[in-house]
């Protein structure tokens, strides 16, 4: 794509960026009767048409602004690419959720940079924190910026397009040897928040670390995530979204669909495929195929969900 000047990034990097196509290829998923079905690789224009009408929202995750290691020396740059891609979508999503690790080291400048880029989408963004957003000395930068109107360490709920959204925090008070953690206070709040909701209300839970057990050996799961899932059992349509593992993963269990978004910063290996879950170094040309965003579409009264994963480069 022309017209994007990343001039000070060095010649080879600029070349990569200039060669990048913005075709918007992605996989459109539909879930009918609990069975996920990939409709194939389509471009984002078709995806938007296929998904319409209905409410569409976008998920981005794990921007790790401040990360500058070999796996991706410019995490802010690839976040900007994701934002450009979002801005080029033919149909504007209703809003966006960010499932955490906005920053890499919870530094004020990292939060500022992330905000400067993400705000260019001009979308409402609903955040939950990742563990990387909660490591400043007094653990207040995230909360000062995003915590207004939230409970506890930053959990909250809201309604949009007939769907009830719940943002959960599972990166606080992590215990030795354990996984992600919601805690009794948050679980009590969640139970209360869902009480009285009609069982036909579609529910979306989103949190940074997977609420389901993906790979406990790498801490990819939430100790008390099962409790949260019990509370949503009776609902007709439940979608659980998370980040943290930097790769697309999907699972359907009864009326609950679990989905993990890509990172906009760097890929991580498949469970057990490497000695550690650390940043995966891939060839420059492959990196953007492993980063990206997800857009999710709801068709009301159809119990039908379409998830479109859009890599930065298809």
């Amino acid at each position, binding site marked *: 794509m022309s017209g994007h000047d990343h001039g000070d990034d060095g010649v080879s990097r600029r070349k990569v960026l200039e060669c990048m196509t913005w075709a918007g290829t992605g996989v459109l998923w539909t879930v009918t009767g609990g069975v996920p079905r990939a409709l194939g690789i389509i471009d984002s224009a078709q995806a938007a048409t296929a998904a319409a009408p209905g409410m569409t929202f976008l998920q981005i995750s794990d921007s790790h602004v401040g990360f500058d290691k070999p796996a991706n020396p410019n995490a802010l740059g690839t976040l900007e690419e994701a934002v450009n891609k979002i801005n080029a979508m033919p149909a504007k999503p209703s809003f966006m959720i960010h499932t955490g690790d906005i920053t890499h*080291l919870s530094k004020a400048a990292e939060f500022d940079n992330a905000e400067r880029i993400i705000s260019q989408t001009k979308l409402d963004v609903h955040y939950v924190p990742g563990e990387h957003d909660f*490591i400043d000395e007094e653990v207040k930068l995230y909360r000062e910026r995003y915590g207004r109107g939230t409970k506890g360490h930053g959990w909250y709920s809201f309604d949009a397009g007939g769907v009830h959204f719940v943002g959960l925090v599972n990166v606080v008070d992590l215990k*030795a*040897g*354990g996984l992600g953690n919601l805690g009794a206070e948050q679980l009590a709040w969640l139970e209360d928040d869902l009480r009285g909701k009609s069982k036909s209300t579609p529910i979306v839970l989103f949190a940074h670390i997977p609420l389901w057990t993906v790979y406990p050996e790498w801490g990819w799961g939430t100790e008390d995530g099962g409790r949260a899932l019990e509370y949503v059992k009776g609902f007709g349509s439940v979608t659980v979204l998370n980040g943290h593992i930097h790769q697309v993963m999907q699972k359907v269990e009864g009326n609950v669909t679990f989905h993990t978004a890509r990172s906009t910063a760097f890929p991580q290996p498949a469970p057990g495929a490497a000695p550690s879950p*650390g940043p995966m170094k891939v060839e420059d040309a492959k990196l953007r195929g492993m980063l990206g965003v997800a857009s999710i579409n709801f068709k009301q009264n159809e119990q039908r969900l379409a998830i479109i994963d859009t890599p930065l480069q298809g």
Partner: protein
Amino acid sequence: MKTLNRRDFGVDLSLALAAAILLPATKARADDMEVHIDNFVFQPAELKIKVGTTVTWTNRDDIPHTVVSAGKFRSKTLDTDDKFSFTFTNAGDYKYFCSLHPHMTGMIKVE
């Protein structure tokens, strides 16, 4: 108990070195130990040390980690190549973990 930051550690080392030159009999820091973080693992995962030993952790991953032993010691977040040192002045078993990646655990046995 004394927690050393990197600068203190440097000063201490040079003092220790000077002491060692002046008094060859002084056994300064000969028993100090290192733990490395590689691939989300504390290595060695278990250390047996004597009272008075200083242990230094070095993060060699591209991802930040912490070193936390509840109520005993807590490092700042260690970015790549950052170090944290702690001198063990009391005997006992010190279980510790990374508060960012709690599946990472280690043990220091002080006798």
